[in-house]
Structure formats: C-alpha cells, structure tokens
C-alpha cells in the first residue's frame, strides 16, 4: 500500500539538566530534542543529518524507546508506541531494530557470532527448534555477506566492516519493518563504508525495509536517502525530498552545511 505511514512522531521533546558549576545544583535544562514531528512512509529511507549536539541520537533513542521523551507521541503501525506494554510492546518491538555506529562496542565479545545473531530469535520466537534457529541464523549471515562458518567464530576474529555486517544481521534476523541505523559507517574506512552502504541499500530492497539513516555526513545520507531531514539544536529546520534538500536547500543552516562539505573535484 503506497503512502502508508509506518511511524509518526508528534511534537517529541526531551530535555537534559545542564550542570552550571561543580558545586551548584543544576539550574538550567537544555532541550536536546525540541518539538520534533515527522512521518515515515513504509519503504522509504529518511536521512537525518545534523552536527554533534543537534539531537539526532537522542531522537533515535526515543524512537527505539531506549529513553522516554518528556512530551509528545509516537505512533508505530498506527498504535500508541510509547504506551505499549506487555505482549503488545513485545510484538511491536521486534518490528523495529537498530544498527549502531560502533560494531565493536555493541557486540558481546564472549559470545560466538551464531549466539549474538541468533539471540533475538531465542527471545522473540522461543517456539523455534534449535535446528530452525541455526538455519535462520545461517541464512541471515549469508544475506549480509558473511559465510555460514561465521557462526562458530568470535567478534574479534572479524574486521570492522565484517563486525558491522554482524550487527546488521542481528538487527534483521527478526525480519523487522523499520531499521534505524545510527552512523553505521562513521567508524569505517571509506572503501569498507561503501560496502556497508551498498549492503544496506540491497537489504532494504530484499527485505522491504523502511530505513532511517542517521548521520553527520551529507554525502553518506545522499547515497541512500529518499527524503532528508536536517536537525539543528533539536529542531527539524528543513525536511523534504533528498534532491530538493541537497540540491536546492531553502534553510540557511542547510545551505551552510552543504557549503562546508569538502568536495572531491570531478
């Protein structure tokens, strides 16, 4: 169904207390995310760009319900995501997964890759037999470009790019509808980052994913996003079709960001 809204954020806000001195009680609160609203259509890739402190990671964590917003609403598949509890929460949660920047920090070093990738199945699909779980794990590892033999190895045996593939496999094994990728290539070398961007684009097609790509890098977002939202000090200052925002930016901040990108001569 084209144009179906998968996720909608309404006036999301989150503030943190700012300590004003070593011995004073924190007097001030700073808004990390300030009244952010947007809708995500099923199947699209929304790029969220902004500089450090703009609130993009706070926004992602609220969407994942890793932190609670101070105010606002999130509708996921038309349901009240922030209010979901119990079985409802579990059934919604598995449909939304996250890929992190640092594949080293996000993988348990003492577990074999098979356990890391297969763990979500044990939690969300406990009815599966051991054999079925192993088969699903091997299948998803192949889909992300790792061999079946990865199952018995440990994360440290893999390069940075391969670890990011492991992180992506873990995110995809439950067949989520929405994947939020937070700076997925920032810690990788250019040649390897391109492999991961290509992989995300292919997986999005194969798994009919809706993708939210969070990055500080406009060129990275330009590769995948169909729409782009520019975040500055907690607010969306511009949102629109990628060609529009990157090609004919309207907001002065977007214009400044684009002008600052050091371009490779053609």
């Amino acid at each position, binding site marked *: 169904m084209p144009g179906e809204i998968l996720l909608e954020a309404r006036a999301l806000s989150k503030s943190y207390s700012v300590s004003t001195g070593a011995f004073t009680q924190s007097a001030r609160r700073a808004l990390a995310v300030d009244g952010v609203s947007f809708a995500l259509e099923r199947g699209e890739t929304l790029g969220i760009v902004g*500089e*450090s402190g703009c609130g993009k990671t706070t926004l992602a964590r609220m969407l994942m319900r890793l932190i609670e917003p101070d105010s606002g609403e999130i509708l996921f598949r038309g349901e009240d995501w922030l209010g979901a509890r119990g079985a409802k929460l579990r059934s919604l949660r598995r449909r939304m997964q996250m890929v992190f920047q640092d594949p080293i920090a996000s993988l348990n070093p003492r577990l074999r890759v098979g356990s890391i990738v297969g763990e979500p199945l044990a939690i969300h699909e406990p009815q599966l037999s051991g054999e079925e779980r192993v088969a699903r794990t091997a299948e998803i590892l192949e889909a992300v470009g790792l061999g079946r033999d990865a199952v018995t190895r440990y994360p440290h045996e893999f*390069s940075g*790019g391969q670890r990011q593939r492991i992180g992506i496999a873990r995110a995809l094994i439950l067949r989520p509808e929405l994947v939020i990728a937070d700076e997925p290539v920032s810690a990788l*070398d*250019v*040649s*390897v*980052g*391109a*492999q991961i*961007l*290509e992989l995300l684009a292919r997986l999005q097609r194969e798994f009919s994913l809706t993708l939210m790509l969070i990055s*500080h*890098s*406009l*060129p*990275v977002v*330009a*590769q995948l996003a169909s729409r782009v939202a520019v975040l500055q000090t907690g607010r969306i200052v511009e949102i629109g079709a*990628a060609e529009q925002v*990157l090609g004919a930016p309207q907001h002065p901040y977007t214009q*400044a*960001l*684009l*002008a*600052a*990108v*050091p*371009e*490779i*001569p*053609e």
Partner: protein
Amino acid sequence: MATSLEVRGLTVELPTPGGWVRPVNEVSFTLGEGETLGIVGESGSGKTMLSLALMGLEPHGARHAGEAWLSLRGAGNGDGGKNGGARNAARANLLTISQNEMRALRGREIAMIFQEPMTALNPVLRIGAQVEEAIRVHEPRAAESEIQRRALQALQRAALSDPARRARQYPHQLSGGLRQRVMIAMALAAGPGVLIADEPTTALDVTVQKQILELLAKLRRELQLSMLFITHDLGVVAQVAGRIAVMYAGRIVEEGPVAEVLRAPRHPYTEGLLRAAPRLTREKLVPIPGTVPSLDALPPGCAFAPRCPHRVAECDAAAPELRAVNKNHEARCILVR
C-alpha cells in the same frame, strides 16, 4: 622552491610475536617550503606511524632506517637570534639525532597537531599556562612577561576570540573546534617551519572543520609554513594540499599534484578510493572488495593485487617500483608505461 623536509627510504619496523612488521616501508618524499603535502590512506596504511617517526615519537621497541632531513630555520622567529646562529641554514637528520637534540627541535622547528586535542592538552592546567610552557621550554631565559605576551599573541594568531579570557579557561570549558585552535596556537608558538597535521579535523563537525582548514591555510601563507597534512578524506586533501601522496600497506603508491591525481588517478587503489567515496550527488558507489592486508601477511608482489580489478600474473612476482607518469606524478603500478 627551497626544501623543508626531505625523506629518503624511511622504514619503520615494529616487533610482534611473529617477527618484525613494517608499518612504514621505504617512504620517500620532498616537502617544499610553504608547500602542503597531503598524505592519504585508510587505517593501517602507515600514515600516522610515518608522522610519529618524523617527530621521534614511535612506540617503544620500534626501529627505523632511512633519512629525514629537516631544514632548520634557526634564528629569525622572534627570539632575537640568541641561540639560532649556529644552526642557521643547516639541516638535521631527524632519524639519527639524539633524544635531546630532537627535544630541542620539537616545537621550535617541527611541530604536530593531532585528531583529538583533548588527549594532547593537560586537563588540569589553564590554556594560557600550556601555551606559555610551549614557549618557555625553548627559551628558558625569557622574561615571564615576554612569554605571557607571546602566548596571547599565539592564541590570537589561531583566531581565538578574546584570547585573554580563553587563556584563563581550562580545556574542558572549550568546544572541540576551540580546543583544536589552542593546539594550533601551542604548536606554532615557538615558530616551527614544518607542521604535521594528523587528521586535525576528523573529530570536528563539518562547519567547524571548514573554519579550521581556512585557519590553517591562512597561517601557512602568513608564516611560510610547510605542512604535512595526514587525512583519510579525499575532499579535505583536495582543499588543503598542493600535492598528494597515497599510502597503502606502508608504501606510497601514488604521488603527484592533487588536482591531477584526483581527476586522473593512475594507481588502481587511488581509483578505487575515489569510486568508493560518497559525494553529494548520488551515484553508484563501487566498494573496493576485501580488506587491507595484515602487515604480517603481505602478499609477495603488489600489496594491492588481491583487491585489484586490473590484476595480471606479473603483479604477484615482485613489489612494483614507483613509475613516472610524467615529471610530477608517479604511481607504483606495472600498468603505468
């Protein structure tokens, strides 16, 4: 153009349980006065080890071979020539001088700035005190008032607004961009002729990066600095450098004028990097297959051969020499004829 730094056959070796590995392998280049040479490479290319070797800061147990001749500016940088005369118009080989001699040159003749200024700044000392220390170490007999005056001047030169107030602050009170300005002020406080900048803007936001790159370009012109600019970012190198050297697995694989190398690369690795780099306009990215080889398991011939789309049997026979594309441009590939 006078030469500021001439590196010939620089090799750095590190001990590992499996034997010696070479993060820097027979590297040669010449840095002209007032010139910026961009050194580009991915992680493990040896670009940072190269700069540490030039600064005498290699890890414990490392050994090196080759030469690195630094032309000394000596007097004429604000100290009135008190102890500069003897070294005037002289050169020093950074790889053979003693630790004490290196200490005397570091800061005064050659200085370095790093990716993360927070780790290079002392968190419990005020900014001003740290810049003053960078001056005092080379001029122990200068009056305190003179040192303070020059520290403020150095901060001002790095375009820090209200330098007197900044001097009283601590590093954690400054943003990343301001901390990098402080690092630049410290590095240039004693008037070095050569600055090594190792990924100085990689940790910064893109708008702040632009300001720092502009500042470095301005200082380079004003102070006739020669700069070795180390980065993984081809866009950054296009902006700051006149020439580029691309490193892979410890070796320079291509060197030439930056515009020419980026428009018409002659080494398949440079070509691959350019195709893999995301740009503002969407086009199909072509990743380089595979990964950088481990230093203890380098292929026998060309180190890039296993990932190279143009590989022929001859590539595995021996590591290729740098071949001249024209008189300013060379590439380490047998396909260059």
